[in-house]
Every structure is written in structure tokens, then in C-alpha cells.
């Protein structure tokens, strides 16, 4: 016993990890396994309590054969990849600006990026309703007043509103890892590149961009995961017309109380999400082999 305590205090081996492992097992792994098990069984619920649970693959086979699910997951993947791409397109220039800025401007950029994170995503999503909403929304009123359009555009409650809102809500999660990379960027490399004849654009393309890959990988993983699994933004900005996989799982669980179906949807969501995270990690690692090469003696 004393031996165990001593080893624990030593910080050697796996002992220090035990509190975290225990915490996660009780609060995450067990509930998750229970939830997922619903997908592989028929359950009977009475007054909110499961009274019987029998193993079956019916729900899984039915859902895998259902085109609605295929379309919904395709839509989710398309949306999340688009949001990831948009976040990269909008986020990279901000990070590049950060790289090129002095101390004061850098601080300003950092505050501007972090500030939205201090507000709940739900509140920020509501803000988009005000901006994009019907005839009296800021966008439509501006366009009407300028005479650019004759009738208000229908943006809110469409796929476009979800895309715009989600990009804005998740943008900081792309910018922050990129800024972390830029902070470590050695300016001597840019000078070396210029000295060797590169224009600023060539330096961006051949030095800064490839060296940002680890940041892009982290940012893409964060943005994709959150975009793929959120049901708040699609519900608020899609106005109930927009169904993605996460929203579907949520509705099956909370509204229609089809727990088994919801569990299958969740399982598929989890598996596909892990697949894409793996894909991003693999892509980022193969393009950054230079971090890890060892000398051949």
C-alpha cells in the first residue's frame, strides 16, 4: 500500500493518469456505451425507465438502407467541409496579418479573435437572425435601400444562413491555432526567402503556407468536428427546414423519443467524425514529415 502511494507520488508510470481515467470512465465512457447499446437493441421504456432491452440489429440495418439517412449525412459532411474551407479562407489572411503586424496590432487582432468566444454560440447565432432576417434584417434593408434588389432576399431559414452563421461562430477556432503557428514563425526564414529572390507572395506560398500546415490541421479538425456535431446553429438559422445529422439525432432523442434510432444516428455520427479527424490528421502528418525526420548515421 505504501509502495503504491510512493509510486503515485513519484509521478512514474500510469499512476498519475488514474484520476482522469476514472473520471472519464464514470462520466463519459459508461454513459456513451449505454447510449450506443440502445442502437443495437429493442428497448421498452416505461415512465422514463428502461424496463427491457433485447439485442437486435434491426435498427442499424433499417437505417443503413434508408436514403433519408444517406442524404442527411451527405448534407452534414458537405456543410462541415464547406464551413471548414470557408474558415480557412477567411482565417488564414487574419493569421497572416497577425504575422506581419507589430506588437500593438497583434494584441488587437488577438482580442478581436478571442472576444466572440466570450459570448455563447447561441447568442451569436441569434445575432445572425437580426442581421439576415426577413424584410427588416440589416442585410436586406441595406440592399433594398441601395436599390440593388427589388424584393428582400430569402437568406434566413435556408442552407445559406446555416453556412454563414456556422462559419462565423467557428472562425476563431481556425484562427487561434494558425496564430499559434505564426507566433513561432522565424522571420529570418522570410528574409532568407526574399534574399533568394522570392516576392512576398512567393514567400507566402512557399514558406509561410507550408509551415502553417500543423495549424491548419488543428484548426480544420476543431472546426469540422464542431460543425459536424452542432444542432444549435442549424435549428436557429435553418428554421426547422434544415436537417443535418446532429439535428436528426437530437430530434429522435428529445422530441420523437426514438432512442434506438437516435442511438444509431449518434453511432454513425461518431464513427464518421472519427474517420474525418483521422483523415485530417493523416493529411497533416504526411505533409509535415519534415518535423520528424531523423538523421541516418
Amino acid at each position, binding site marked *: 500500500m505504501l509502495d503504491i502511494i510512493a509510486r503515485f507520488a513519484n509521478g512514474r508510470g500510469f499512476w498519475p493518469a488514474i484520476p482522469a481515467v476514472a473520471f472519464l470512465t464514470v462520466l463519459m465512457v459508461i454513459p456513451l456505451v449505454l447510449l450506443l447499446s440502445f442502437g443495437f437493441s429493442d428497448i421498452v421504456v416505461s415512465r422514463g425507465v428502461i424496463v427491457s432491452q433485447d439485442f437486435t440489429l434491426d435498427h442499424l440495418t433499417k437505417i443503413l438502407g434508408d436514403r433519408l439517412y444517406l442524404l442527411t449525412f451527405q448534407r452534414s459532411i458537405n456543410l462541415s467541409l464547406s464551413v471548414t474551407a470557408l474558415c480557412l479562407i477567411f482565417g488564414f489572411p487574419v493569421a497572416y496579418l497577425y504575422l506581419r503586424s507589430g506588437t500593438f496590432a497583434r494584441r488587437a487582432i488577438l482580442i478581436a479573435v478571442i472576444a466572440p468566444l466570450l459570448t455563447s454560440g447561441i447568442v451569436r447565432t441569434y445575432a445572425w437572425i437580426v442581421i439576415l432576417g426577413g424584410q427588416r434584417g440589416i442585410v436586406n434593408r441595406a440592399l433594398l435601400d441601395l436599390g440593388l434588389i427589388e424584393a428582400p432576399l430569402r437568406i434566413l431559414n435556408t442552407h445559406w444562413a446555416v453556412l454563414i452563421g456556422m462559419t462565423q461562430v467557428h472562425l476563431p477556432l481556425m484562427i487561434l491555432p494558425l496564430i499559434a503557428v505564426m507566433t513561432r514563425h522565424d522571420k529570418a526564414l522570410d528574409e*532568407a526567402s526574399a*534574399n533568394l529572390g522570392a516576392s512576398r507572395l512567393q514567400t507566402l506560398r512557399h514558406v509561410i503556407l507550408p509551415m502553417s500546415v500543423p495549424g491548419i490541421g488543428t484548426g480544420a479538425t476543431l472546426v469540422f468536428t464542431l460543425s459536424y456535431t452542432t444542432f444549435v446553429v442549424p435549428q436557429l438559422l435553418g428554421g426547422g427546414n434544415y436537417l443535418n445529422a446532429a439535428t436528426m439525432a437530437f430530434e429522435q432523442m428529445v422530441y420523437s423519443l426514438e432512442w434506438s434510432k437516435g442511438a444509431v444516428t449518434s453511432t454513425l455520427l461518431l464513427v464518421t467524425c472519427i474517420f474525418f479527424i483521422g483523415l485530417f490528421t493523416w493529411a497533416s502528418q504526411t505533409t509535415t514529415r519534415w518535423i520528424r525526420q531523423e538523421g541516418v548515421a
Partner: protein
Amino acid sequence: MDGAYVGLAPFVAIDGLTKRFGDHVALADCALAIGRGEIVTLLGPSGCGKTTLLRCIAGFAEPDAGRIAIDDTDTLALPVNRRPVGVVFQNYALFPHLTVAANVGYGLKMRGVAKAEIDRRVAEILALVSLSELKDRYPIALSGGQQQRVAVARALVVEPKLLLLDEAFNALDAKLRAGMQAELRKLIKRLGMTAIFVTHDQDEALAISDRVAVMGSGRIAQVANPIDIYDRPASPYVAQFVGTSNMLEARASGGVATLPGGIKLAAPISGNVQVLVRPQNFEILDASDARAGWQGRVTFGRPAGAIVEYEIDAADGTSFKIAALRDSPAGHLPVGAKVGLAVRDAGTCVVFEASS
């Protein structure tokens, strides 16, 4: 190859170069002329302006005034990526995400040279610096010496007119350093390249350059070949920065300065003067010897290879730094020994006007 550069139009001409950072004057009216194929070192302590001068030539910093011409072309008018200058950076600044071959070929690629031509020239220069075997390695898998050779190859492959090296040997350990200095000097000479080294290391400066420009407080204090810098420094600043020096006070009149012990030196000035005597120019005598100009006591002794370095304090409080051959009679003095000191050779002493 002595004194200032003499010739027709110099290959590199720097004139009136001035650079301020706020109130701080980093470069004050610097002038330097360098001949084709010459190796010049900018030597000085940190903050003396040597790196700023190099950055102005490369285009990383913009001078407030002055002129830089390379091969009769106004270089300051050229953007940074069009200057005919190759830089070897302090920590080499190799692109970590590119292989050795891609690092070396980078400049050619940016210039739009065809792929086959790039491969040929990269292979050629890598063979020259004996790195052909390592062309597919990434910089992280190279030793310091190998990284330095990649940096040199990368700067040379685009055939610059002038090579700039910023503290190029700093990151190498002492033993490797001496070898690389000789290697690099030979390589630059073989290619007939004109080069400017920047360093704070006087041994490095004396070892690799044809001429040394000693800098202090943004000014060039003296430009001369390494031997003259040591033997005939132009000012007490240069004398004290290069090598070990003893500055003795004396009075001069009628063109002659007299040191204790009856040593007479030609002095172009009258009044209070300072006399530079190098450590090896002292003779250590018995305390009772009549030739001794000073009596003193050994306070410190340190063997340094073939010589011993002593600190000897005279009765009047002056501290001398003296070097003696270890196999001479004076090579084994204990701390506390009483000795007499005399200047060996008046001809190698240098007389300066007293600073105050």
C-alpha cells in the same frame, strides 16, 4: 594587401551610410570600399552596428542616408529580392519543410530556372560542399556543420556578386569552428567570390579575412589587414578590442615619449600619452634587475598551451597582463613572486594621445 583598399573603382562601395532607430544611432556615416574577390570582416562588440550594416546591404533594413554600390550598380534602389547579394544567416535560416536539395534549389526556383537546370546546378554545388549524400535529408536531421554548408551552398548557387555571412560560425562548437573557417575561406577564394563576414570574435576575424573593419558605436574605427589591426591599431578602442593590451600612461615631449626603464618611443604628439604594449612584449626579470622599469608581484597565473598568462600588479597599482613562454625561466612563477618588468621592443609599442 595592406592598409585601405587601393585600386580603381571598388567592387563594393559604401559611402556615408547612416541609420537611426529613434534616438539610437546604429550607423554613423560609415564608408567602406571592398575590392573584387576580397574577404572583409566587420568586427565589433554587439550593438556596434555591424549587423545593421549587413542588413542594409542585404535590404532587410533601409538606411536613412548614404549610398551602397555593388559592381557600379546602385544597390539601395533595388528591392530586397533583386539584390545581387547572398546571405548566410546567423542560425542559417534553412527552410525546415524543405530537403537539403530543395533548400539549395529554392533561389533558382524563385528565379524561374527550369527543373533540369536546377537539378544540375544543385548537384554541382552540393558536390562542392561535400553534401551530395544528404540531399534528401530535412534540416532537422543535419548536424550544425552540415547545416552551415547547406546555408552556404544555398547562398552561392544563385551566383551572387557579394556573399554576406552573419556570425556564420556562432552555432558551431569551438573545434569544428576553426576547421570550417579555413574550409570556407578556401572555398570563397577558389570561387573568386567577394565576401563580408560579420563577427564579434576577433580570432575568427583575423583567421578568415583579407582585411578587418573594426566597428564601434556605429562607426568604422579602422580598416586594415589583420596584422596591421593587431600591430598598428589606429585608436585605443581598436587596440583594446583586438588582442590583449596594456595601456601605459607616459609623457611625451620633443617627439619622444619615455617609459619607465628608459625605453624611448617616437611620439608624434606632446603631453600626456597612452602607450600600447602587448603582453608578449614584456620581459620578466628578477626584482633586483637594473633594467626593470617596474617592480611587481604576480597575482594570477594561467597556463594557455605553449604560453602562460600572468597578471602582475606593480607597486603603483598598475595591473599588467603579461605572456611568457612556458618553457622559459619565467614560465613557472608562483602567485606572490616578486618580479621586475621591462619592455622588450620599443618598435612594436604604439603611442596614442591620452583620452582625457
